[in-house]
């Protein structure tokens, strides 16, 4: 188990990177704690797989360094790096049984048979695969195979970290649920540093202690699910996290007052007079609807459609110029002549897409 440190890490696939856009991975400086469960979350092409491959050693970064604890492992070849990786689709050795699969990484490194057997059994129990120990790996289901892949990673006691590259991609939806919870439980039990790459926010939010949201090769924010939810540091994070994502409106700001859609709202902090592209972000969870007669200062809106989700419903609104969403409890009724109010404690202000911190 190890602490992972990324120092000035960047990567360009081409020969002579000149501009920002030539870099698949832009300057990164981060520390992942020992035993932490982290997720790399982002859309396709954001660089998360590149970052993962650099950590695992399948790719060497063009700039910067990677440390496991205090050792510089940037140029160490994969097999000596002591990491384990679980891929998008299950990789198992078809001709071997489950037990032989798990023993493989140890056998290759010349461990004594007497040492291998108990270790394999330990992992079999951990993964609940005891009764499949002597079954040929070829005929198993996808989720069982992914567990075997994970097992091959865990079987080595000197593993620094376990990396997951969108491991639930080929698992069918029912098993996804199960496997997700099992992975989380396993991580807590084993206390292994694990890094989980995905484009699915639910997977990330379920699995990780902290999540790095990535876009275009940069880590936009690295924080706990709560932090990402309540104070997204970039408009993309606000938009990407949450279902539906954050609402954004262009606005004007002066000190403690923000003007959006011709309504003035008082804020709990002062922002001075910022320049640039200003946006107000508010999550649908913090948008409430009232009758105009009760709240004449609210933002007038027309309901376009309502999606019922069981306990909640998404109300899609428009004020003529801007569309936005509100998330209401199923028990709350929708006003006939609705106006929207934003909870000012949960308003986030963005300047050129990055969050602006106010002074209280």
């Amino acid at each position, binding site marked *: 188990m190890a602490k992972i440190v990324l120092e000035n890490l960047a990567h360009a696939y081409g020969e002579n990177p000149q501009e920002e856009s030539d870099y698949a991975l832009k300057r990164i400086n981060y520390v992942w704690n020992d035993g932490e469960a982290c997720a790399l979350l982002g859309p396709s092409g954001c660089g998360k797989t590149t970052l993962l491959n650099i950590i695992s050693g*399948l790719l060497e970064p063009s700039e910067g360094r990677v440390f496991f604890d205090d050792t510089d492992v940037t140029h160490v070849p994969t097999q000596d790096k002591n990491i384990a990786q679980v891929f998008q689709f299950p990789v198992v050795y078809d001709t071997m049984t489950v037990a032989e699969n798990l023993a493989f990484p140890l056998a290759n490194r010349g461990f004594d048979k007497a040492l291998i057997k108990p270790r394999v059994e330990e992992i079999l129990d951990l993964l609940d695969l005891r009764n499949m120990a002597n079954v040929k790996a070829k005929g198993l289901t996808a989720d069982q195979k992914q567990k075997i892949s994970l097992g091959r990673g865990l079987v080595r006691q000197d593993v620094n970290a376990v990396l997951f590259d969108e491991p639930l991609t080929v698992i069918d939806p029912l098993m996804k649920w199960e496997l997700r919870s099992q992975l989380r439980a396993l991580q807590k039990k084993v206390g292994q540093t694990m890094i989980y790459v995905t484009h699915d926010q639910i997977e990330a939010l379920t699995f990780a202690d902290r999540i790095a949201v990535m876009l275009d090769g940069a880590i936009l924010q690295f924080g706990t699910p709560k932090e990402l939810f309540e104070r997204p540091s970039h408009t993309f994070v606000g938009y990407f996290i949450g279902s539906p994502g954050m609402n954004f409106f262009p606005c004007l700001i002066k000190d403690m007052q923000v003007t959006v859609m011709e309504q003035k709202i008082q804020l709990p902090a002062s922002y001075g007079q910022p320049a640039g592209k200003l946006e107000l972000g508010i999550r649908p969870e913090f948008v409430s609807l009232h009758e105009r007669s009760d709240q004449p200062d609210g933002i007038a809106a027309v309901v376009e459609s309502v999606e019922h989700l069981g306990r909640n419903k998404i109300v899609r609104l428009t004020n003529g110029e801007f569309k936005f969403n509100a998330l209401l409890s199923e028990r709350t009724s929708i006003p006939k002549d609705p106006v929207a109010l934003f909870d000012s404690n949960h308003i986030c202000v963005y300047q050129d897409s990055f969050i602006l911190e106010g002074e209280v």
Partner: protein
Amino acid sequence: MNKTWNNKAWLMVIPVVLLVAFSAIIPLMTVVNYAFQDTFGNNVFYWVGIEWFEDLMQSDRFFDALQRNILFSGIILAIEVPLGIMIALSLPKSGWKVNVYLVLMALPLLIPWNVVGTIWQVFSRTDIGLLGNTLVSMGFDYNYTRDVLDAWITIVAMDVWHWTSLVALLAYSGLVAIPEAYFQAARIDGASKWATFRYIQLPKMRGVLTIAILLRFMDSFKIYTEPMVLTGGGPGNSTTFMSIDLVKMAIGQFDVGPAAAMSLVYFMIILLICYAFFTVVTNMDKSDTKNGGES
């Protein structure tokens, strides 16, 4: 693929059936006919039952030819399959070089079979051939027209030269289909090159290798033209394979009865071995996939 049951599909299949029936069933009927009859000449035939088959089973000539075929097929399979795999493993996965290699490797496959024989004649003769002349001048007593061992070595070399590319191309197609993730996992697991070959590449090539082995077995067991051109079946009888013998009987000596009987037995042997091999491989596949698991 979810296939639907539709007997009207027979309409689409009829042209193929007709053509192949014309090309296969009618001639085979003729052969079967001849196999059970004898003639007084002048196209008058009479039934002799299984007499020709009995003769065949006691014929030294037949069994000698059969042995030669079995030996030959065994040798070339033992050489061409590992060699083809080895070459496929050494080819790059992509890039401009691959196209050049593939094209050049495919060249021997497109040479008319008698030209293959001619090429090796011109190459191996001691008077005009590069190989023949060089071997003799190095002190070897090489002459494929007179020495049985030399003839066999030359024919085997010719076949390896001719057909190894087929195995290599098929094996290559199987190898490029293996997703990169498998090799990455192998590296992470610390697997050696040999372990990677044994546990990943070889199992994944099973399909294409089956095709390659079947094709090579069938074609080598039926071989006619190349050895016919090179050695004419000689020296003596030493390279007279079953096809060569059969043609001699049928066209040369016009012994239609024995020829027909031999034809049927010959065909049966190939069918049986192919069927057996095919069944074994399919069963291997089945036993790996259990209870609705994925393969």
